[in-house]
């Protein structure tokens, strides 16, 4: 993890979604940037791919059950 990622993780709540975005913004000025949505989608895809690569076997399944 880079310090940049660390700073984003520490910002509070869900600030992890835009790590792929590298455009530097001037603060407090809403940016009309069409690539925001694409960057956000790319970030979600990257996160899902990282989770897909994480080893997971069925032995964990009993821990994720619906309880009546």
């Amino acid at each position, binding site marked *: 993890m880079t*310090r940049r990622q660390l700073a984003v993780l520490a910002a509070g*709540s*869900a*600030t992890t979604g835009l790590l792929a975005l590298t455009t530097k913004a001037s603060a407090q000025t809403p940016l009309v940037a069409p690539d925001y949505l694409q960057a956000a989608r790319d970030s979600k895809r990257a996160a899902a791919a990282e989770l897909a690569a994480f080893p997971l076997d069925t032995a964990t399944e009993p821990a994720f059950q619906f309880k009546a």
Partner: protein
Amino acid sequence: MTDEIFYSPLTGLNERLRKREFSAVELTRAFAERLGKYGPRFNAVALPLTEIALRRAKEVDDDLKHDRFHGPLQGISFGAKDMLSFAGHPTTWGARPFASQVFDETATVLQKLDKAGSVLLAKLSMVELAGGGGYRLAGASLFGPGLNPWNPERWSGGSSSGPASAVAAGLVPFALGSETSGSIISPSACCGVTGLRPTYGLVSRHGAMPLSWTMDKIGTLCRNVEDCGIVLQAIAGSDSKDPGSAGKSFYYTPQYARKLSDMTLGFSPDDPDWADAESRPALEAALRTARDLGAKVLEVSLPEFPWGSLTDIIIGTEGGAAFESLIASGKVDELADPSQAAGLKANLGVLAKDYLRAMRIRSLVKQKFRELFTTVDVLVAPSRYNVAPKVSEPLDGPDPFPSGKAKGPGMTSLIPAGNLAGLPALSVPCGFGGGLPLALQFVGPAFSENSLLAFGREFQARTDWHLRRPPLSF
């Protein structure tokens, strides 16, 4: 009344109310005037409730006059993050699309504090939608950027921005905030206040803005550890209106707390290497103090998981569902930070299989933490590894310290990891870097709040960082 009351601990204020040194009305009016004077300087206030507060304080005075005592919070005013509903008044969630939103029911935690005799003085500002879409600007709020009382060119942290700056500046005796992943611990650290994130399910979220049903928690921001324990006792407890409620109460019992000498504190020697140059000396000294509190100490490592991706998928998916109608209406584009809108829209595209996989991995996270807590009782680490960022710079800007020499990750992922596992955390001020506050966090197993408070209490008995006050002279 002198300025000293604005930084008095809760028990001190309550004792003086009981002795009739001043009335609840006088105390409420004093805080209201201070909040009115300084609150706007930090963009801390969402909605002043002065008239209602004064009426409530008058009722409290009547109770005190007739010796009807309701505990240590009676007559004490407080602020609440604007994600908590207060019947008949706007609850904006910090976001323009909800600027005129009004609920007809009051959040359970506010009802509990009312019953304890506390006086709600104001709703306090927050990052829009608690940052649920992923924000990159300090100004991602209906109320503007949260400004830090120690230096208004710096951010107050988020998403509980107003609660942190208001407590730090002595504008309210305590405040309620919320955390999904970092929103109490981070602003508490930035502003130099003591913050407590309770175990998931210990405090009802009924009446609170839902962002992530499996990760949202309501907690406290206070002057010191003792105050956090007192407020948590008042707001914790079972609530049938919150399906996530653990059905447990909390009793702040310092007299029965385990001795520190009977406990083991886990730490990582890699942590100081993650701090920037101006923060490192203070954090190293604070970690030494923590290791000398009297507990046994043990070097440990956090389990390795893809923390960022787990929180991104889980909070993102649940947040996308929670705000589906906002996104569908198009009003999501009214948010102050366009990356929030983009993030929320992208959240709706996450596949169910990916969310379920994240939740399955989360089961392993809980298991690994259970194993870790068989070797240590509490973990200690920096709450943040640097001071509050500049308001003028994006939060996800370029890495300012690219030449790190850390051998391992240390506890750098303790905020997302602890939140994913539902663990409690206590952040205590621990020094300064470049004139801005730094903090340590203590994290323990679920429902170990009294152990965390014991460590925090001892830390604050040996240091005075929590007693420092911002100058407010700019």
